[in-house]
């Protein structure tokens, strides 16, 4: 019982650290990648000096995220005369909290056996016993539903922020945010249904375990190879859900001056920004879990590598755990970087185009994809 509590507290600590780190690092990635893509040098000024020396750690400007965070925290929290003070203060948290909670159901590693991990220290190994734990905070049979449930709550935060600010730009931003997020959440749900049909489960751990095999002898059995079409639609809908370019109509800087959070300053505004960057990582994690095999490395199982051709390379448990954790993080980082690539490549839609794109283009495509999947699954059964 207490062992369970300890293991899960460690998981929660790990998840929070990873998410907050991703949120900070991605702000830097966004700037640096923009710079690389437009052939500039980019963020390279922030540094940490080792005390009592002249050694400056610049590390390609990696500390810009920390500098931003510090600036947000110590800046004056300017309070405008808003329409509803309570809703105004509450809104950033309604946006921020559900995004952190979504990670609770995402598996970030395979099975963990504390007894094997601490085999060198018999007392600890004995205390943990023979139990295995999935590396996931909450293993629920409706995991994917929980993701969408929490995703829906943050819409309310964006709408509340715009409404309570008593600013017409904020109001317009909130209206746009509401309409856009509802539309794209529907598309996102429909794209995932095909995968649910193939895997036959809502449990994200089971979905990842389904993807650990081999397809046609050489391909890893990842979701993206079963449902390439759904993967594309899911990514587009997820970027729209996160309100980023080319779908950043709710916060369009040039016309709405940051839209629903125009009236926010200091760390309250920082929470909106932080939520956006953490959601990039969450979308990356979801995409990895659903379509890229989660923590699975091709040809690798919990025992070690099994290469095509029958070569076996057994690995100790600790190494397997570390490889799985790192694989998941690398995949998430690559998918986050891909989203930032899109952000700096495409121009912004018009608002009517955004909604038309959702209802007249993506929704029919998602339905067609679902129909084809249903027929294929039915024929193959």
């Amino acid at each position, binding site marked *: *019982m*207490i062992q369970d*509590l300890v293991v899960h507290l460690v998981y929660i600590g790990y998840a929070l650290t990873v998410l907050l780190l991703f949120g900070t690092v991605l702000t830097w990635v966004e700037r640096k990648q923009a710079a690389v893509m437009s052939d500039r040098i980019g963020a390279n000024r922030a540094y940490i000096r080792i005390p009592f020396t002249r050694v400056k750690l610049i590390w390609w400007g990696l500390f810009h995220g920390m500098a931003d965070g510090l600036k947000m925290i110590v800046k004056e929290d300017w309070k405008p005369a808003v*329409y*509803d003070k*309570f*809703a105004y203060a*509450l809104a950033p948290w309604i946006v921020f909290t559900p995004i952190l909670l979504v990670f609770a159901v995402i598996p970030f590693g395979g099975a963990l056996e504390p007894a094997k991990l601490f085999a060198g220290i018999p007392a600890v190994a004995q205390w943990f016993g023979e139990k295995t734990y999935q590396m996931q905070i909450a293993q*629920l*049979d*409706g995991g994917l*539903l*929980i993701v*969408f*449930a*929490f*995703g*829906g*709550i943050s*819409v*309310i935060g964006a*709408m*509340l922020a*715009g*409404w*309570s600010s008593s600013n017409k730009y904020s*109001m317009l931003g*909130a*209206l746009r945010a*509401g*309409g856009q997020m*509802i539309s794209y*959440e529907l598309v996102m749900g429909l794209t995932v249904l095909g995968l649910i049909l193939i895997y036959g489960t*809502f449990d994200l751990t089971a979905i990842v375990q389904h993807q650990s095999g081999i397809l046609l002898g050489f391909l890893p059995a990842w979701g993206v190879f079963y449902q390439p079409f759904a993967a594309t639609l899911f990514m587009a809908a997820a970027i729209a859900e996160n309100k980023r370019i080319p779908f950043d109509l709710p916060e369009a800087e040039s016309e709405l001056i940051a839209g629903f959070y125009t009236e926010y300053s200091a760390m309250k505004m920082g929470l909106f920004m932080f939520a956006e960057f953490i959601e990039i990582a969450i979308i990356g994690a979801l995409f990895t879990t659903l379509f890229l095999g989660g923590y699975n490395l091709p040809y690798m199982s919990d025992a070690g590598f099994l290469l095509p051709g029958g070569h076996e390379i057994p690995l100790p448990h600790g190494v397997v755990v570390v490889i799985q954790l790192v694989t998941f993080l690398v995949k998430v980082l690559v998918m986050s970087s891909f989203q930032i690539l899109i952000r700096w490549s495409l121009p912004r839609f018009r608002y009517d185009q955004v909604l038309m794109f959702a209802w007249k283009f993506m929704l029919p495509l998602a339905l067609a994809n679902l129909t084809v999947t249903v027929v294929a699954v039915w024929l193959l059964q």
Partner: protein
Amino acid sequence: MEALLQEFDTLLLYVFAGLSLAGAIAMLVLQHPMRVAMALVATMIWLGAIYGLVGVHFIAAFQILIYVSAVMVFIIYVIMLLDVRDMAYTRRYAGLLIPGAIAAVVFFGVLAATLWRTVEVPLTTTAAFGIGQFAVDFLQQYWLQFEVTSVLLVAAVVAAIAVVKAGGKDHG
């Protein structure tokens, strides 16, 4: 420590029940439409937490997915568009105060009487009622009710559009 963890579920149940009750009371007492909606959202979320605690996680997910992120989002959308200078909602009591109060007393009386008679509430767990079992029950026994509901909803949408069209003609 072990015993404390065993009792932790019960403690959480009381906390969630208290919070959802507080939300429900706030919904009745507050006056501004947006505050009322927020109180209702809070109640829904804490009810979802209770479902999660009982072990039917997917019912909790449905509770939040359907009530909070679909129904309440639309209600908040409408409230956002209300004219904030319209002071109709600042009146404390509506005209039907006395009949309403009598109905409330009767309702709570019936509720209390029912609770008095049935003390034991049977609780299900995940093992008994997982999402697979739910899907089977839903598609084999309750599909007709579900479809009838959707027909009713379509009728309601048509009626709403008709009302809007008719109103538009009167006001030019």
